[in-house]
Structures are given as C-alpha cells and as structure tokens.
C-alpha cells in the first residue's frame, strides 16, 4: 500500500512539471495564434499607410507607426550610450565588491522593478514640469525683455502710457523683422473687440506675453522618449554587461601588454569584441520600449494625429496607446474590432520579431564564446 502511494505521488510529481510547462506554452501559442488568425485578414497596404479617420474608427495606423518609431529611436539614442557606459564601468573599472559598484547594481535592479506608471509620473513631474517648465520660463522672460527693449528704442504705439488701437498694434508688430512677432500680431486678431478697440499698452504686453506657447513644459515626444529611456536603461545595462564579460581576458591582457592604456584597450579591443552584445541590448530595449504604454500616457502620447511627429516638442500617436484607446475608450468599441485586432497583430509582431532577433543574437554570442 505504502509502496503504491509512493509511486502514485512519484507519478504525479514527474508529470506535474510537464503539465505546467504545456499549459504555459499553450497559453503563449493561444495568444499569438489568436491574434494572427483574427488580425491577419484585416491587414492591408492601406492600413499601414493611411491616417486614422472618423474619430479613429476608420483608416489606418500610419501616424502611430511613425510615432512609435520616432519615440523608440530617440529612446535608443539616450538609453544605449548611457547603458553601455554604465556596463563598461561595472565590468572594466569597478572592483567587483566595492560599495559603489554594488550601489549601482542595486540602483539598476531597483530601476528595473519600479512600476512603469511611476516612470510616467516621474516624467511628468521632472521632465515636463521641472525641466520643460524652466526652459519655457526662460524663453518667456527673454521674450518680454526683447519686447520692452524694442519698444523703448523705437518709440512705438506700445510705449508706456499710450493707448493704441488693435490695428495699430498689429501693424507695429508685423513691422518688427522677426517671424515670431508677426505670429503674435495674428494673436491680436483674437482680441475681444466688444469691450474696446483701443488698448492699453500694459494689456498689449499681457497678450503678447501670453502668446508665448508652452512648447517644452507640456507633454511631448522628447520627454516621453527620455522617460522610456530611463525605463529601458536596466535592460541595456544587464545585456551589455553580460556580453562584455564574454570578451576573453587574454585579449585584454595582450592589449595592455602591448602598451595600450586601459581606455584604449576598452575602445579598440573590448567594445569591438562585444558589439553584438551591445546590439542585442539595444534590440531588447527597443522591444521593451515599443510595447510600454503606461510611461507615455501622460508624457506625450496623443489620442489622434494625422501625421507623425515632426519636432521634438510634438505630441505623437503610439501603437500601444492606439490599441488601448480603440479597445476601451472608443465610442463604438465593437465597430472597431477589426482595427483593434490588426493593430494588436502589428504591435505583437513588431515586439516578437525584435525579441526573437535578440534571442538569436544571444545564442550566436554564446556559441562564439564556446568555440
């Protein structure tokens, strides 16, 4: 009896791990298969090249693709150099158990564990409100200063104490040979004429000052990219570090023995030997960054746009956010099902392709190292 029970437990104990593995694998295949089967029929050339129309219920995802690409590109430009250099410090310069190296490792682990939505809050509080706000304030002060100087030098209809008509102010502003000023002259056409046609110089100043737009202190592409870069930094660091460690010690020593300095050795021997690893890290970071939505929710993504972003301060559309909007916030969720499935397939395909590429590169590195 006891023997029998033992074998029964043993039987289960040997089968359960297999069952668990199969369940996980089946789920993965179910997700991928589900989206490939339901999404593929809706993919079309137009879907990739057209802008969304009719409040996002029709049309394509072109601006979202461009927006995601721009975001990820900027993110990579920020995260990969910083991550690579940190990894170089950790492997080449730091002593393995120095407190500083351990603190950096701890910080990197912590960064990897911070919930992505907290990065979004940080982006809002730090990048947008603090840094962007400072930039805007400086621009605004500068503008007012130039304006006061111009008025004093030229004796304009806006000099202190005078009262001018809106038309006069407009003519005057257009005459200043700088594009920005004519832009502000247009601003004056929105001046409430019902109250008075003649305006006090102080009011004019107020209007001009207020017409300096909040370019940097608002959600935009650059801040979203930097926020994402922070999120993907640990991915780059860990992956580059791993590949730096595979560079054989002998090569470094040979280089040092030939009289190269430490930095020369790193630059000409270590880095070229681990380029594949740096590439892997970048690809993994791109894969991670392309799919994250929470950090960009309030740092730059926008509901709908006709074009991709053209400037750093533009807002942008994003594939993941587009999917979120379509599937939960859209007025008619059921009508946009085809769009949702197609967008999911594109996003999933993109991230899976990037991850597969990273896996292949990694196994290539390992094989090279083993050889």
């Amino acid at each position, binding site marked *: 009896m006891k023997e029998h029970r033992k074998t029964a437990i043993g039987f289960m104990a040997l089968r*359960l*791990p*297999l*069952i*668990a*593995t199969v369940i*996980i*694998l089946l789920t993965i295949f179910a*997700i991928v298969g589900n989206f490939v089967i339901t999404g593929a029929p809706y993919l079309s050339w137009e879907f990739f090249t057209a802008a969304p129309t009719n409040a996002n219920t029709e049309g394509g995802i072109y601006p979202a693709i461009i927006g995601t690409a721009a975001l990820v590109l900027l993110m990579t430009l920020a995260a990969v150099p*910083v991550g690579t250099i*940190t990894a170089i*410090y950790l492997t080449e*310069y730091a*002593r*393995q158990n120095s407190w*500083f190296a351990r603190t*950096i490792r701890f*910080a990197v*682990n912590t*960064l990897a*564990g*911070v*919930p992505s*939505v*907290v990065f*979004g*809050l940080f982006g*809002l509080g730090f990048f947008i409100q603090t840094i962007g706000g400072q930039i805007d304030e400086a621009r605004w002060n500068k503008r*007012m200063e130039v304006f006061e100087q111009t008025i004093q030098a030229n004796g304009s209809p806006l000099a202190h104490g005078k009262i001018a008509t809106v038309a006069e102010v407009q003519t005057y502003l257009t005459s200043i040979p700088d594009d920005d000023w004519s832009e502000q002259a247009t601003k004056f056409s929105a001046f409430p004429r019902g109250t008075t046609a003649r305006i*006090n110089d*102080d*009011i004019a*100043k*107020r*209007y001009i*000052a*207020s017409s*300096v737009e909040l370019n940097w202190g608002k959600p935009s592409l650059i801040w979203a990219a930097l926020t994402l870069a922070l999120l993907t*930094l640990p991915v780059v660091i860990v992956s580059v570090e791993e590949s730096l*460690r595979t560079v054989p010690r002998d090569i470094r*020593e040979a280089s040092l023995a030939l*009289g190269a*300095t*430490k*930095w020369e050795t790193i630059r000409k021997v270590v880095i070229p030997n681990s380029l594949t690893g740096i590439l892997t890290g970048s690809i993994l970071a791109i*894969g991670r960054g*392309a*799919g*994250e939505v*929470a950090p960009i*929710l309030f740092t730059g993504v926008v509901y709908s746009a006709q074009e991709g972003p053209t400037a750093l301060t533009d807002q942008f559309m994003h594939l*993941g956010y587009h999917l*979120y909007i379509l*599937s*939960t916030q859209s007025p008619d969720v059921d009508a946009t099902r085809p769009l949702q499935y197609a967008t*999911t397939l594109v*996003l*999933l395909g993109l*991230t*899976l392709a990037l991850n597969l590429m990273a896996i292949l590169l990694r196994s290539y590195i390992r094989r090279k190292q083993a050889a």
Partner: protein
Amino acid sequence: MQERPSPDRTAAHLSRLEIRPSLTERNRRIGERIIEGGIFSIAALSIVFIFLIFFFTFREAAPIFFGSEKEETQAAVFDDYKLPGEPEPAATATSSSSEQEVYNPESGSAPGVRSDSAAARGDSATAGGTATDSAATTPAAGGDVEVYNPESGSIPVSTPESAQTDMDAARAIVGNDYPILTHESPVKLSYLAYKTWQPNSEHPRYGIYSILIGTLKTTLIALLIATPLSILAALYTAFFAPKRLREILKPIIELLAGFPSVVLGFFCLMTVATVVQTVFGIDSRMNAFVGGIGLALAVIPIIYTITDDSLRSVPGSLREAALAVGASEWQAAYQVMLPAATPGIFAAILLGLGRAFGETMIALMATGNAGTVSWSFFDPVRTFAATIGAEMGEVQHGSPHYQLLFMLGVLLFVFSFAINLVTEFYVKQRLIKRFRGSE
C-alpha cells in the same frame, strides 16, 4: 558532468585575475583620467535617477503630507504681469485679498495660458482660506465643512441659510461619515481611510480602501496562478526536460516577457473575459479574476526565469548525492534541489509580486475599474496603478486629486523599492551563505 561556468563563477574568476593598478598606473595620461571620470559619473546616473524619481514623485504629493504653503509661492511667479486694467478673470486674481471670489472654470476664459493658470492657482490657494472661514461661520454641522457652489461661482458665506441648504444637499451625496469637500480643498491623510474613491464627483471622496482591496485581490490571484505554474515549469526545464528541448523551451517561455502589456490586456479583454464568463457564468465581463489571469501572464516569465536560474545554480553534487543514497529522480528534485533553491524562488515570487502590484495597462483594461468593496474574486475591481493611469490625464495640475495620484505613485515606488531591498540584502545573502560551503 559537463557544465558551462555560470556568470557568477566567471565573474569570480575574472576578479581574481584583476590587474593591479600599479601595472597600468604609469600608462595613464590626463585624457585617460578625464574619460574615467566621465564613465564614472555616467555610471552614477542610475543612482541619481533613483533619488530623482523618489524626490519628484514625492514633491508633487508633498502638500498632502505637509500642508499646502507651496501653492502661494507658485502663484506669485507671474504676478508681475497681472495688471490693474485687466479683463475680468485676471482682475479677480489681483484682488485676491478680498473674500469675494472663487475660481470659476466657466468664466475663466482669458486667452493667455499663463495668466489663466496663474489665476487658477491663486484662486485655489484662496479657496482653501475661504473654505476654512465658512467652516468657522457654520459650526453646526461640525467637522470639516467646506462648501462651494460651482453653479453661482460665488461663495455662499454671505447668507448662512443658503449655506445650510447647500450643505444639506452635499450631505445627501456624501453621506454622514465623510467631510464635505470641494475640488480645491486641501486633502488630509485622514481623508484616505474611507471606502469610496470618487474624486470627480461634485463633492469628492478620496477613500482608498476599495482600491487597496482591489490591488491586493488581483495581486493575490495573479500570484496564486503564476507561482505554481512557473515553479513547476522551471523544475521541468531544469531537471526533467531533455537538454535539447530545454534550449528551445526556455527562450519560448521567456518570450512571454516580451509581450507588450497592452496586448496581454487586450487578450484578457477579448478572449479570457469571454472564457471566464462562460465557464463561471458571472455578470460582469471584467473582474478581478480576469485581471488576475492577465497579471499572471505578465508575472509567469519573471518567476520562471529566476527560479530556473536558481535551480540551475544549485550544485549538481547535491542531486548526485541524493540519487546515490537511493532517492528517486523526483525525490531528488522536490526534496533536495527545490529546498536548496528556496531563497532564489522566494526572490522570484517577490519580484513577481512587485510586477503584479504595479502593472498598469493589464489592470486598466481587464479588471473593470470599479471601486467596489468586496472580497469576491468575480467582482470588478480597481488597482492603484490603474487608478493613476486612468485619472492622471484629466486631472488639473496641482489640484488635490493630482496630489493624491502622485501619492499613490509614491506608494508604488516605495513598495517596489522595499521589495528590491529585501531581495538584495536578505535573499542574496542567504543564497551566498548557503552555497559558499558546498562549492
């Protein structure tokens, strides 16, 4: 038994071979020093950013903890450009010493972005002041009574009777056990210890109890599903699977970590929700269970990878010894190897917990986002992270609601930080101690 050296062992090997500074010292030039300094300071960035994240998330939430003196100084920034001959909205802002005005979003239509926000800030600062006054004039209701009528845009202090009726109406909405607040009245920590989270209602309520329960529920479900599955799967790939198969299986399971969380959320929204609804026959499509499954999908690769790694790092000699004294294959795996890897598995579960706790998009899409207080697994719930994600976009900068969302962010950050502290200083030390002797 052939085994590739683990990364840790390689590291130890390399550090033993470390070149002494004296060898390279004479080759160093000034440029070398500068480059080294640059690399050092960039490496320090990760540490700097941890501090910055904490500081700037905390700073936005600070008025909740320390009261709101900060508001007034911010409002003063653009005061130089607020001039007496102004159109209506700015004029109210300049005479902020009188008690007449309360910020009225309807009439605040100055074209200037700057002046507008400045006026709003100035007014929200004064609204706090007037509200306290009104509480002083109508002590009958007791407690924190702060009445504000958005329709008329004027403070009802002038006529005590109207204040009384307004307050009765507000009481009808809010209930008897909660202070009547406006969207401007500063939030105290004590306001959070209630059930209902209704920050957008006319008289907002900021109780986080329901969100806390929702978060705990989804996290629990996610861990209950993910932990056994991923530990068993790790056992399979670490011990039972043929070597070739495990080389394929591991990357595939880890691929799950690369799935964007919106995609997982969408999968739950469409497929899992339907399946769960059909199987269990429940009313609400989106509920804690569906969200928990979604979170489990995100957590599985984390627990799996770390468990697999720590199972592999258990010295093979332990297993061989167990087999040699007559244990069967499964006994060696479950009774020797699994206990030996406990600290690693513990770390894996902790990190999974951190992920499930802070995951935003899946929770936002699949949990139903309703702040109901219930312990049933099949009721719609709302989590901390989803609350931030859903409400941050529409909230007015600097308002109490905004500060509260940042406070939730601080909570999430502190929680994940604590988890990392535990894994770093407890789990790793245990692991090192356990295997130092046996290697």
